[in-house]
């Protein structure tokens, strides 16, 4: 039996969402005027309303995108234009562990980018780190942006469901979310503005999303996103995910006490997120072996052109190169059980022994 422990990458379709999508029936284009189109428009409006209600903003504060990456990119594009239009200093302050969708969409050239406490006209904050599960101090992020008179965008892709809504998200100028992290289909995310704002679109051509993001909306994915955010807190088992992560950590530690370093605080960080460096075991090697053993996990390394480099987002949090190179992330979510966690811990210990004895310098 396979054990899926990669919910921070993508969470399988939630049963409630699956049920809703199965009942949708044939859909037209929401921009079409016929009955099928009108039905699609109604579904789109309903989903927008649900996202807006969850966020506590007006429906026009929600721009649907293809996912979290586009939402982050659009926010940076929009606020960059606003800084330029206002004649502000071309300076961005971002968190060291920012996701690639933030890091790589930040403007270059004459823009100054800092990860410290220097003043900047655009602040980019990651609410919950996808790898370490570290939770940002959103009060401090909002206060810092206000002090600087800066725009604040928050990458909140990992936040919904795993954390209760935080009003400081709404006090930022914008924040990004993604549907498939919440058990909705892949293909929809949202950029949420706390107040009505005119933005310079990145994608033009159809005038959808009030001209702010053209392109026919992925309706089923958007309906799923709306459905996910309409789930009540009691329908989201975040406390159980946290307990399961702690259980997994305890069980791994019991069998490999001297072979691991925890890089996450799964008792207090993002529920369900456990990041462990297995000493001297390259993360990609261990993750590949675990995959064969039936456990889906994530590792922060990429092997391109024969080189394995640790995740820049993880290195940006201050984790050493050696630990980042050996880091494997387990992320627990909807559907995971105690039996699965115990089974996973047994398999991890077994695979660890095999891989360790394959590697030079490991005895």
């Amino acid at each position: 039996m396979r054990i899926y422990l990669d919910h921070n990458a993508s969470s399988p379709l939630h049963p409630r969402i699956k049920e809703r999508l199965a009942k949708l029936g044939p859909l037209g284009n929401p921009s079409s005027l016929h009955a099928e189109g009108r039905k699609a428009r109604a579904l789109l409006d309903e989903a927008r309303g649900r996202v807006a209600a969850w966020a506590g903003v007006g429906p026009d504060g929600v721009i649907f995108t293809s996912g979290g990456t586009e939402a982050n990119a659009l926010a940076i594009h929009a606020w960059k234009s606003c800084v330029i239009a206002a004649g502000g200093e071309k300076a961005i302050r971002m968190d060291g562990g920012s996701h690639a969708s933030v890091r790589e969409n930040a403007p270059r050239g004459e823009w100054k980018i800092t990860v410290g406490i220097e003043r900047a006209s655009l602040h980019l904050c990651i609410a919950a780190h996808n790898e370490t599960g570290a939770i940002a101090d959103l009060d401090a992020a909002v206060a810092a942006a206000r002090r600087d008179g800066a725009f604040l965008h928050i990458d909140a892709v990992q936040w919904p469901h795993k954390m209760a809504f935080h009003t400081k998200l709404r006090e930022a100028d914008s924040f990004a979310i993604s549907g498939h992290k919440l058990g909705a289909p892949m293909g929809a995310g949202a950029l949420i503005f706390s107040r009505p704002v005119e933005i310079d679109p990145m994608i033009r051509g159809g005038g959808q999303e009030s001209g702010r993001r053209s392109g026919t909306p992925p309706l089923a994915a958007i309906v799923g996103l709306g459905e996910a955010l309409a789930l009540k807190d009691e329908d989201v088992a975040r406390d159980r995910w946290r307990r399961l992560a702690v259980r997994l950590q305890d069980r791994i530690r019991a069998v490999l006490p001297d072979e691991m370093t925890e890089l996450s605080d799964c008792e207090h960080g993002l529920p369900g997120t456990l990041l462990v460096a297995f000493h001297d075991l390259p993360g990609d090697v261990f993750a590949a072996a675990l995959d064969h053993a039936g456990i889906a996990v994530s590792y922060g390394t990429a092997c391109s052109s024969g080189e394995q480099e640790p995740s820049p987002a993880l290195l940006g949090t201050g984790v050493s190169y050696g630990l980042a190179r050996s880091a494997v992330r387990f992320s627990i979510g909807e559907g995971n059980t105690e039996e699965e966690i115990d089974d996973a811990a047994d398999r991890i210990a077994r695979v660890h022994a095999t891989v360790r004895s394959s590697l030079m310098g490991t005895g």
Partner: protein
Amino acid sequence: MNYGEAVRARVATARFRGELESESVRFEASNPVCGDVVRIALNISGGKIREARWKASGCPPTLAASDVLAEMIVGLTVKEAQAIASEDVVATLPGLPRTSFHAAEVAVEALRGALQALD
């Protein structure tokens, strides 16, 4: 990177990993570009490779290629083993990305080095 199931299976099971209790020769080869290292140890008698074991430092394809190679050479004569090329290893690892073919090359280099060291 998606290495393919054959690579993942080899890394997870790695039947020929480790050390030999009695070895005739061992050799360590490295890829100067990516830094991967393969050490192969052989037990040879009567002109035949009786046992082979390996240890490596590198990416999953390097570990998998080492294990495949070790399995291939057990039972071969030294001459037959000398004829093995990295393409032979690649052929037994379906799904291995082209960018990872270096893994087979460094494993075969370790084998050739070991066989040369016999002379």
